[in-house]
Every structure is written in C-alpha cells, then in structure tokens.
C-alpha cells in the first residue's frame, strides 16, 4: 500500500460558477495537490504534509482561509485552524487570528510548544509573537471579492457560509440547493494524508462565515468536528460550521469505522448522506489502508486527491478531471 492524499477548498459550489472563476481554482487545487504529492514521495511525514498543503491553500486568495478569508460583520478578519496527528492523537487549534499569515502553522506550534491544545484571540496572537511566526497587517488577508460578499450579505441581512461568486440578482434561478436561509456555501480548506506505514494526519483552516459575529468560532478549530485523525482514518470537513459541530462530523466517520466496522467510504457516506442535512457538509478522508473518500451533500466541493500508484484527480462537481 502506498501513500494517499486528499484536499479540499470548500463545499458548496454553485453549478453556475463561470469558467473565469472556476479555472484559477482548479489550477490552485492542482498546484496544491502537486506539492502534497512531491512531499509524500520524498517521505515527508503526513503531519508535515498536511501542514504544508494547508499553508499553500491559506496563501491562495481564491479560498476562504488565510488570504482570501471572508469578513466578520465588522469587516475584519478572524481566522481559525486545527491540526491532528493520528499516531499520537496530539492536536492543536487556534481561533480569532488577525495577523498570523499561516493559522495552521500556529495551530501546530500550540500542539508542540505549549502544554495546551487550543489558543484563541489575543492570547493566540501573543503566542504567535513569542514564537516569531510571520505576521502582517490584517489588511493583507482582505480581498475585494470578500468586501463585496460582505456588502451583499449585509444588504440581504444574513450570515453566509461563503460563496464562490458575488451574488447576482438572478440567484433564484440557479440550480444549487440553497441553505436554509437562501445562501450557498463554500469556504474552509483542508488536507488529509496517509503514508505507506499507515500514519495519518489532518488539518483544516478557514476565515469562517461571511458576516459572522465577531468572536464566532466554527467547526474548523473544534477537534472532532472539522478535524480528526486517529489510527484508522484522517478527516477534514467543510460546510455549515454549526451543523458540523453538532454532528461531530470528523469524529463520526472514525467512530462508524471503529464501532460498526464500516469501510472509510461507507462511513463517510453515511455521515454525509444520512446524518447531516442536505446542502450543508462535505469532507475529505483517507484511511490507514490508503482508501480515499470525498463525499459532499452540497452542489459541489473543491477537491483533489492522489495515490502513490500515480492516480490523481481534481474535481468540483461530480465529474472528476482525472489527471
């Protein structure tokens, strides 16, 4: 059995996404996948790989993490991330970051350099400075698109999961499944990986919900909800944070495998299609045996995966592009 890797750039992609917005994102997924593939081929540990890939996804402004994060209801940035090592089950998480360039790396430092698992807001920012990680002015993370999204959300007076394109007046004619209050969803990035020895790791990062209340924490930094890894599998989820939290989604995939003896695909499908409402969640997962699952119950999910035997794919909706 060889290594396997899967990554996502967010669940909830309207079918109407125009080519000029779709192509750069496909390219970005391909690019990040290549980075992960090279790293695994050079025997980097899955923990290092997921951090590396998520850092890359954070740096790309097309996805809702790091640069390109969506904005709070005050127009500010509050980023969160978590990482988990399936071998040791050690984990790290951060929330409420405003100046840290790579939230996932700070989460890793919390895991490795503190007696704690989870640091947030001012305390996390202070820790970042003590650790000497790269920080920048918060404006670095803000993009025009996200300012636009926030304006639209405020006009519509709602909180959005995120959206891959500005809302046009004819949204109602689109075929995507709307979230309960009419929003489409996307947002959050993540990566899971397993090496040929069955070592697993997972990492997830996000800017959260468009127009979220300041101080709102979602699933991405809650271990067991947005991120989980043990010796059976590694999972990273995306979608409506509140749904993922109450469903302990990432943990549930592993629990079904462990307690009901299901395969990765079976477990992941049950969680996505039977245990969470339609239009709210997607996930990527790998198992110790090298299986990959990337189910979603939203219109689409930005994703990519590869295995050591040379297979790789990039996909948004149901037709993967086999590379």
């Amino acid at each position, binding site marked *: 059995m060889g290594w396997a890797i899967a990554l996502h750039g967010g669940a909830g992609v309207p079918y109407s996404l125009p080519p000029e917005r779709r192509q750069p994102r496909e390219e970005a997924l391909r690019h990040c996948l290549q980075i992960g593939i090279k790293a695994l081929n050079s025997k980097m540990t899955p923990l290092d790989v997921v951090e590396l890939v998520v850092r890359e996804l954070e740096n790309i402004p097309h996805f809702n993490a790091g640069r390109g994060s969506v904005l709070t209801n005050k127009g500010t940035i509050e980023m969160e991330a978590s990482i988990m090592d399936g071998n040791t089950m050690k*984990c790290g998480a951060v*929330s409420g970051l405003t100046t840290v360039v790579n939230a996932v790396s700070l989460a890793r430092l919390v895991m490795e350099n503190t007696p*704690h*698992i*989870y640091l947030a807001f001012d305390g996390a920012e202070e820790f970042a400075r003590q650790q000497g990680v790269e920080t920048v002015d918060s404006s670095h993370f803000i993009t025009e698109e996200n300012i636009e999204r926030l304006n639209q959300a405020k006009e519509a007076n709602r909180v959005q999961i995120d959206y891959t394109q500005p809302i046009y007046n004819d949204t109602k004619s689109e075929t995507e499944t709307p979230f309960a209050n009419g929003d489409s969803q996307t947002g959050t990035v993540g990566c899971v990986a397993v090496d040929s020895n069955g070592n697993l790791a997972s990492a997830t990062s996000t800017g959260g919900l468009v127009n979220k209340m*300041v101080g709102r924490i979602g699933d991405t930094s809650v271990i067991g909800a947005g991120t989980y890894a043990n010796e059976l599998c590694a999972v990273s989820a995306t979608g409506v*944070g509140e749904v993922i939290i*109450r469903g302990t989604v990432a943990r549930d995939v592993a629990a079904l495998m462990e307690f009901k003896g299901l395969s990765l695909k079976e477990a992941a499908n049950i969680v996505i299609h039977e245990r969470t409402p339609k239009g709210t969640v997607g996930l990527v997962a790998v198992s110790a045996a090298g299986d990959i699952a990337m189910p979603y119950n939203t219109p689409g999910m930005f994703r990519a995966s590869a295995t050591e035997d040379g297979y790789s794919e990039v996909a948004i909706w149901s037709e993967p592009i086999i590379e």
Partner: protein
Amino acid sequence: MAGWAIAVHGGAGVDPNLPPQRQEEAKQLLTHCLNLGISALRSGASAVDVVELVVRQLETDPIFNSGRGSALTAKGTVEMEASIMDGTKRRCGAVSGVSTVKNPVSLARLVMEKSPHSYLAFAGAEEFARQQGVEVVDNEYFITPDNVGMLKLAKEANTIMFDYRIPTEKCAGLESPVKMNGLPISVYAPETVGCVVVDSEGRCAAATSTGGLMNKMSGRIGDSPLIGAGTYACEVCGVSCTGEGEAIIRGTLAREVAAVMEYKDLGLQEAVDFVIKHRLDEGFAGLIAVSNKGEVAYGFNCNGMFRGCATENGFMEVGIWE
C-alpha cells in the same frame, strides 16, 4: 415511560488528603444542587432548563472552579468558558474567554437560542452578553483569595496547575504519590462543574462550565466549551466531562459515550465504563451521564470525582471517592 434522572459533578481528580471540612462543604453544595434540579424536574421543567439552572448554582458558589472561584490565568485574571447542549435536536451553545459575565452557562444558552451561531468567544462573546443584557460584573468578582494564593504557588513551581482548594499554607507539607497531568495530586484538582439531565419526557441535556487551568496562558481554551469533548447530548444520552482537558479533547470523550451506545448498542453504564477504560490512555478524567431511559451513570479513572446523582424512583447519592 422511564422517569427523570440527574447527575452533577464538581471535578475529577481529588487529593486523598483533602481536609474533611472541605469534603463536607463540597458534598453539601452537590446535595443542594441536586435538590434544586430535582425540584425543577418534579415541576415538569425541561432537561435543558434544569441543567442551566443547576450549573448556574455551581457557578455562583465559589467552592468549585467555575464562575466565582474560577482558576486564574497567568495574568491573574479570570477567563471562563461553558457549553450547553439540548439532546432533542442536538442544538448547542458555547462561550469562551468570558471575563465579566456572572453566569457563563446562561450566556452559552443565549448563543444557542438567540444567535445564528454555536460558539462565541472573547470580545465577541462579551459584546453579545451586553446586547443580551445579561448580568455582568467586574472581573474581580470572580477572583477569590484562595485562588490568588494558588496562582502564586503555581508560578513558583512554574507549572500549570489544574486548581486546588486547600489553603496555601497547608499544602506545602503534603506528600502524595497520586499524580495528574504530571503534577502531584496535592497541587492538582480541576473542579470543572457540570450537570446532565433526562426529564420526564425522556429528553436529555448536558452543560459544563469552568475557569480552566490555574496559570493557563491567556486565550487557552479547554474541553469544557467544546461540543463532543466536554459536553454532548443527543436523543439517547447527555454527558458532561471533567479532568485533563487535553485527554478529553483527543478522546472526544462526551461524544464517545453516545457513539458506543448508538453504534455498539451498549447500555449507559457499559458505555461509560468502556469510554473511561479505553478512551483515556494515559489521561485522567471523569464524566457523568444520563440516558433517555431514565438511567444515570458516572465513571472516572482518577483519584475521586465530586459528584451527585438522583433518579425519580428515589435513588440519591453524593460522593467523592470510589
């Protein structure tokens, strides 16, 4: 229809040399809280109302580590967190980094019911509290002389301390082979509080509240506000955990009890025993749980847990040790 059941806890990991007077005070508070919950249940209150009511009482009393009497951060301040979950639809609410709100568990409930989110923290949570008009006080209100003393001790030892209720001058000479989180039990006692309830309609709920670790880094979040770790409730059960936060988070402890009941068809006590035995590795923790069948159970793998439980058929017990 099975009757109601309730359990409360005031923390797992207790110094075997805890003075009898302290033990008595703790047991009295647990008994008082149980009775509060029982009265409410007898008058038909819902599970989620009862867990909030009981945890408010535990927060208000300075004996345990929540609300007033919370452990202090490295800066000598109080940062509280709490979560609440209503098993019926698995609605949940949580707060962290709360520094002026008198009852964090009630703020968590408001997050669940009055905001579009599940979890608010720090400045955002404080702002929400003011919008909601909840009772707020100065941070000093929560700080007790005992804890100021404890913090000094912890800093001198330059370690994280979970908490400790014995006055400082008494603990210097105490020897104990029992350890938690690498520290002798004489300088460790987490004392997070929690309550789980199944009401007469079979609805389960859970709530947990804490000040966290003594001498913790400002901004540190533990297991108590994390749904699935410190708190969980669903159709079949309600669970609240306490102990080493890291172990509880990694083990997604509260969710685990429900998962083995759902996926392995275990009964409540079996599930609790299974989780305590198999999910903690080197970690130390305890938990209380109720099932929709009116059962109550608890388990812990460390030295003692402050707890109390009662069921509608008249069973009632308050305890600290095995």
